[in-house]
């Protein structure tokens, strides 16, 4: 799936409120079973992010940084690859 956007998630700031999960229109955020340092679950990113910033708008703990790809699916569009 082509990536139009990407989010960086500051998992250590997350308090596990889960507000971002239903807020995400393409439903590409999912809570993990892992715990961060304060013992909260945090979200992980699945493919298909559009960079719409809905998660960024509703996160009370400022955990999201949003990026928009200049060309969807371009090389370098997949961080970590």
């Amino acid at each position, binding site marked *: 799936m082509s990536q139009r956007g990407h989010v*960086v998630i500051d998992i250590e700031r997350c308090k596990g*409120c889960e507000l971002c999960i239903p*807020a995400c229109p393409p*439903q590409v955020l999912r809570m993990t079973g892992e715990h961060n340092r304060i013992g909260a679950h945090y979200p992980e990113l699945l493919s298909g992010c559009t*960079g719409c910033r*809905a998660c960024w708008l*509703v996160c009370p703990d400022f955990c999201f940084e949003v990026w928009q790809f*200049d060309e969807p699916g371009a090389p370098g569009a*997949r961080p970590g690859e």
Partner: protein
Amino acid sequence: MSDEVLRSDRPPESGATRTGEFKPTLQLGTDHDLCAGCGEPLALRTILESIEELGLAQRTIGVIGIGCYTALTSLMDLDLIQALHGRAPSLATGAKRMLPDRLFFTLQGDGDMANEGLQEVIHAAARGENITCVLLNNGVFGETGGHMTATTVLGQRTKNTLEGRDATQHGYPIQMVDLLAPLGGTAYAARGSVHDASGVVKTKVMMRRAFETQMRGEGFSIVEILTMCPTGWFVPTAKGPGYLNEVLGAVHVTGEWKRDGRLLRGAEPEAPNEAKERGAV
């Protein structure tokens, strides 16, 4: 959607533009002690971004009431005055009269504005003081652990209305924007809600309009922001936005109630907007 998990611990290496930073420029950090699922940090973002976009960062003074949001002052890169409980509108009145070219906003909760300091805000609005009052309304005293306030809706469970607020015993809720909008001195009145992303965007538009109203010298402006308090409501954090929209939002209706001194909801005021006519500072 696929189940492939992407790395989200760092930004793309190239070919991408950052469209949303972790925090607003006027916010000093991201660490705060408010509960998971709290709506007040979302309201903070709308306020700070509006001030920044209007280019008023060096000319803004916030007057802060007492509540959970008082803890957010350590994040705000603005000049601030701490008011006594409920007295922020009066403190802002005096400061604004001395420094009329500055942008003044108060940050108050429903317990602070509607319970402790109801007369302060009513008189400030009736006088047409050229300040912006921001009300963070979650229907409970969050800081005490969720007790009933004057804006708690009928049937709402709080620490001291365990069976739900009952009109015969506890009276009826006060709708602050509905109360203040008809006053002649009020130039702008609106109620937003941060229960979802579009609500946050609309709330930010209201904040900007309120600040612009003040900088044009048109009189009193109020923006009420409905915020989640899952801790005080005894609901899971994920159910907070739905509860806010369905329970509080049904009574505290969102939208613009007065703009440019003209009532958009409810009856027209009998008195003209004198603050606007005399070009109040």
